[in-house]
């Protein structure tokens, strides 16, 4: 294909001939020759119809979380003749930013030569992002002719929510199931903590015999241990559109999703079952399950971008009552802007669920995002929110979280609550 320069040169030549004839000037007539000779010489570099190159792209393996940087390595090998001018553009999703290197390059590739293009991407927002296709353009050195190709090499990257390590606070459901876990059940079982002594029975292992007690009682005595069970935790993410405050990168929805991911990771690590309800663009839910596989399922749901949906927290109540087991711990992550949440918490509590509310403060987020402090409106919003928190405290433990601080610091209130409750 011809570039615009090609037509400009031909047009310039024609105009100078006409102008030269009109003004009877040899200067203008002679000027018709250089553009034509450039066009003739340029024909020498006309690109071929096909391009003999091999392209491969390497991506970092493993999970990619919000805020992570990762390197893309694209290898271009010329298996044909020398390419004098090759422009390469590796398309990158607008969800990612290039922080080092470039995805757009122009180069000369000799026959058989291999070239590596490296650049580092940062992922500020979670969700699915695509890298590719690769656009190739071959021009002659005078940029008079060009040919374009699109190499359909695409790579899909799922950017998972960032996970904060929660190591000092253990979220323990009050109601436990008969599966092994880390929560002391208050009854005999196959745990590690000492519970009681009893008379030796045939079949007891030798290592369970308490020798000191045996010597004292003059008959064999065996140790009994406290059973350690696990419970069910359902995490509810309130991503209602009206409650979403902040910027694209830093808003209540994103912060809530990060908190949900961190809590799910910590609770699953404690061998509990975790279920999930996300009130986002769609009503997504996962039935409680154990283990790494469930963790990946949770992360997959949380990675979906949420602009904020129309689902209200009452819908979560319906899902929990209809599809989830009874006597579970329900953790609601909500900015607590809508006062209707109080009723939902109350209903869940009445339905024998243990409820906990983690609330990322929208006031602090707004201040972080906008960098301004508005005394009156801030005070009113704080008062309204505090009122909701006070009402919820009758039925559930409330974690009022300033997102500028680590979640673990805010969760200290849970530890104090558990100590008071004696669990």
């Amino acid at each position, binding site marked *: 294909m011809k570039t615009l320069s090609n037509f400009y040169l031909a047009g310039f030549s024609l105009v100078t001939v006409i102008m030269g004839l009109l003004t009877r000037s040899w200067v203008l007539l002679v000027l018709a020759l250089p553009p034509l*000779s450039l066009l003739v010489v340029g024909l020498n570099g006309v690109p071929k119809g096909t391009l003999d190159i091999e392209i491969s792209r390497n991506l970092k393996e493993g999970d990619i979380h919000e805020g992570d940087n990762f390197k893309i390595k694209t290898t271009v090998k010329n298996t044909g003749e020398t390419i004098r001018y090759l422009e390469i553009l590796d398309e990158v999703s607008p969800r990612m930013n290039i922080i080092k290197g470039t995805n757009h390059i122009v180069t000369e590739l000799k026959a058989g030569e291999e070239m590596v293009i490296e650049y580092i991407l940062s992922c500020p927002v979670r969700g699915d992002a695509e890298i590719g296709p690769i656009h190739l353009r071959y021009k002659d050195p005078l940029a008079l002719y060009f040919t374009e190709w699109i190499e359909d090499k695409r790579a899909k990257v799922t950017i998972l929510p960032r996970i904060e390590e929660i190591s000092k606070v253990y979220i323990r459901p009050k109601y436990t199931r008969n599966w092994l876990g880390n929560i002391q059940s208050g009854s005999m079982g196959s745990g590690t903590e000492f519970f009681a002594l009893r008379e030796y029975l045939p079949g007891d292992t030798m290592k369970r015999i308490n020798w000191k007690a045996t010597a004292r009682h003059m008959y064999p005595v065996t140790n009994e241990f406290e059973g350690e069970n696990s419970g069910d935790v359902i995490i509810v993410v309130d991503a209602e559109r009206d409650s979403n405050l902040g910027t694209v990168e830093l808003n209540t929805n994103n912060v809530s999703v990060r908190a949900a991911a961190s809590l799910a990771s910590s609770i699953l690590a404690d061998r509990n079952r975790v279920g999930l309800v996300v009130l986002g663009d769609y009503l997504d839910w996962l039935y409680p399950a154990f283990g790494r596989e469930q963790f990946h399922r949770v992360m997959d749901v949380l990675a979906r971008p949420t602009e904020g949906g129309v689902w209200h927290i009452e819908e979560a109540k319906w899902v929990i009552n209809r599809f989830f087991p009874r006597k579970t711990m329900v953790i609601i992550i909500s900015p607590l802007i809508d006062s209707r949440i109080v009723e939902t918490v109350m209903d869940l509590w009445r339905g024998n669920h243990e409820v906990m509310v983690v609330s990322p403060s929208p006031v602090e987020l707004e201040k972080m995002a906008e960098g301004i402090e508005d005394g009156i409106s801030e005070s009113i919003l704080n008062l309204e929110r505090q009122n909701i928190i006070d009402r919820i405290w009758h039925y559930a433990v409330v974690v009022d979280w300033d997102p500028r601080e680590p979640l673990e610091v805010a969760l200290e209130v849970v530890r104090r609550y558990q100590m008071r409750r004696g669990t």
Partner: protein
Amino acid sequence: MKSLEKIPVSTVMVGIVALFAAVFTYPMSAWYLPALGGLVAIIGVFTGRRSLNNVGMLFTGLTFYVLNRTLPFNDINILVVLGMFFALYSVWHTGNREMLLDEMNSDEDNEILERYWNSSNRYLVGYMTMAFFLSFMGVYVARYSYLGIELDPISAIPVAVIFGLLVLFTVYIVSEVLPRYAE
């Protein structure tokens, strides 16, 4: 990009060409116009605005040729007229390439772009030289190809130019197109 900081070099090239155009035009009236076009192009290259570079170089060329349209027809003037075209084209092309590389480059030292810069300079010089000799040959063939046909001065020049173009076309066919069929 340390090694690719060639914007000052390009602006110096534009400055030299525009200054030569102005000096050559002096003492005609409005002799400073080509220099003014050069200044606009320099600003364009510095600020990375291609449109300014394009307009500036076009203005320099147009004013130079229009102001010098009555030059006497001799060897030196033919060289100047042809040479100025290729000089302006090369400088404009170099400025645009620099701006393109500047947009692409983000690293301190980008070997790939550096290599492209060097190879494209080499090709540009080669192509410009070849095109210059082709034009030069075309003009001289036209000039000395007096066929003995008596023509009035008005039609003699176009006939000469058309004849020159025909010769150029024949040279191209012989040197470029026919060898492809020989393979």
